[in-house]
């Protein structure tokens, strides 16, 4: 009897704790969205519904050019990170021994935790030295991309690595037994199997790049102000309804993107499972 009541208590306590923790995670997002519709320039004073901050957004040239630059960089970063991340994950999962493996795995995961201020400062100082010696590169889109690649590669490697490890080795072995060349095995078996990991790595690095402040601040040049830099400089000054409107747009795009992506991934996964099951029965 005593066990029964304590189990109920545990269940209730657990549900309560989880609800509180989820509230902690979601209330700020909810507040941002709600106050973007607030017809009052004062924060925290609700004065009715309006869409005027959204109308102002479209006319905001600084923000729009920042958004365009950020989207370009994010696209390039996501593509580059997935390529480098796939190579790095492959090296770590498939090749157990090679010279410098410890250094390699350390360097791959270090940008995950290394404070961005340090990464940004050091990369900038190196680029400045190179620029003095060779006359290039100018600071701008390219240099920001380089910094974001470092960060994106680390995240992409983690995601793709776990996918590669979960892949049954029999698939590749079977393909080899059936006479596939190594590059055919890679393109026809390995890559399709880890495609879901590649897709989520791409999306993740895209959003990380789209959001980055510190690396961009160090690596941007005159005239290359990304959207987060614009938002950050406004947010520093205080609360600003236009920032709430941007936030809501970003959140809506990301929510739709993530839902769409997970739906597509789940569907292709189901199809793959069905094919595997059919192949097993045949």
């Amino acid at each position, binding site marked *: 009897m005593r066990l029964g009541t304590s189990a109920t208590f545990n269940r209730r306590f*657990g549900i309560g704790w*989880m609800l509180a*923790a*989820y509230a*902690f995670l979601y209330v*700020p997002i909810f*507040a*941002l969205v709600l106050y973007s519709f607030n017809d009052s320039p004062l*924060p*925290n004073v609700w004065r009715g519904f309006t869409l005027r901050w959204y109308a102002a957004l479209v006319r905001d040239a600084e923000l729009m050019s920042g958004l365009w630059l950020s989207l370009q960089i994010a696209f390039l970063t996501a593509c580059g990170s997935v390529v*480098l991340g796939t*190579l790095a994950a492959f*090296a770590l999962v*498939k*090749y157990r021994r090679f010279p*410098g493996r410890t250094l*390699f*795995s*350390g*360097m*791959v995961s*270090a940008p995950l*935790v*290394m*404070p*961005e*201020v*340090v*990464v940004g*400062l*050091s990369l900038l*100082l*190196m680029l400045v030295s190179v620029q003095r010696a060779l006359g290039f590169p100018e600071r701008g889109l390219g240099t920001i991309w*380089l910094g974001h*690649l*470092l960060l994106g590669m680390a995240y992409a490697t983690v995601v793709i690595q776990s996918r590669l*490890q979960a892949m049954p080795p029999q698939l590749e*072995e079977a393909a*080899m037994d059936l006479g596939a060349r*190594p590059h055919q*095995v*890679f393109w026809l078996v*390995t890559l399709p199997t880890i495609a879901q990991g590649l897709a989520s790595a791409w999306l993740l690095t895209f*959003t990380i790049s789209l*959001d980055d*402040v*510190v690396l961009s601040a160090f690596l941007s040049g005159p005239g290359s102000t990304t959207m*987060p830099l614009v*938002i*950050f400089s406004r*947010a*520093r000054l*205080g*609360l600003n309804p236009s*920032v709430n409107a941007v936030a809501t747009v*970003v*959140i809506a795009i*990301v929510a739709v993107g*993530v839902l769409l992506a*997970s739906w597509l991934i789940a569907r292709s996964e189901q199809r793959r499972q069905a094919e595997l099951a059919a192949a097993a029965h045949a």
Partner: protein
Amino acid sequence: MRVRHLVPGRALVIALPMLFLLLFFLAPFFIVGKISVSEMETVTFKPVLTVVDGILTLKLKLANYAFLAADDLYLKTYLSSIQYAAATTALCLLVGYPFAYFMARARPAVQPALVMLVMLPFWTSFLLRVYAWRGLLAEGGWVADIIVGTGLDGLLLQLGLISAPGKLMHTPFSLVIGMSYTYLPFMVLPLYASLAKMDLRLLEAAADLGATPWVAFWRVTVPLSRAGIIAGSMLVFIPCIGEFVIPELLGGPETLMIGRVIWDEFFSNNDWPMASTVAVVMVLLIIVPLAVFSKYQAEAQEAAR
């Protein structure tokens, strides 16, 4: 043997990311180290190594390090960075452990959805979520109203986390809340991973041997989730030490953080050697937790095989 030849150009697969990291991650650190001991001329740095009359001379300017050691403010800033990072880690563990525990013990069918819900905020802008706390903690904000309404601000005042009743923004309190909020998923996910794969029969065995659920929790569950605790704590602690955006938006003038000092030395004072010196010392500070973290990462990889 066969796996080894799976991809043609094995050397290329390793060399390409390796070169990229050596060139753009490792080499820059050495340059920062070099600049931290260089004298700054108007636009360039004097070379550290020079050949004078056929003799190689090494000229190190350690004045920056001496200045750093002598100035009280830098020392205080390092210490308070560690304090805030440690407080954030503790709060994340306190909130995150029960959170991850109940997630891992929920019905298996709902667990993927629960994990997804923890990861989802991570997909929306970090900058904007931090900014949101400015509204919530400002006077009249939702969270501020709750805290002041329940009289919790008196407790915070006594703990020295805020300096005046009702004033929550730009205090150590708002800084730690903001950092905990941002980094909580980094704590919860590794904890969940290690708690979810635990063999529950071990708890039955403990119960059969006479342990109460409470004892079993502390002597079986917690030790088995040690890897998750270490990984989660490092993932929170290390980035918090050098955090810049959160202290800038939620901290105040008295919440000293080392990331802000590097930023100010670089962008406001234009003192690149000093910024480099502060950065080098910070890297030395986090190198031990960093080594623990990568050792854990490597072990986790081995375990996954």
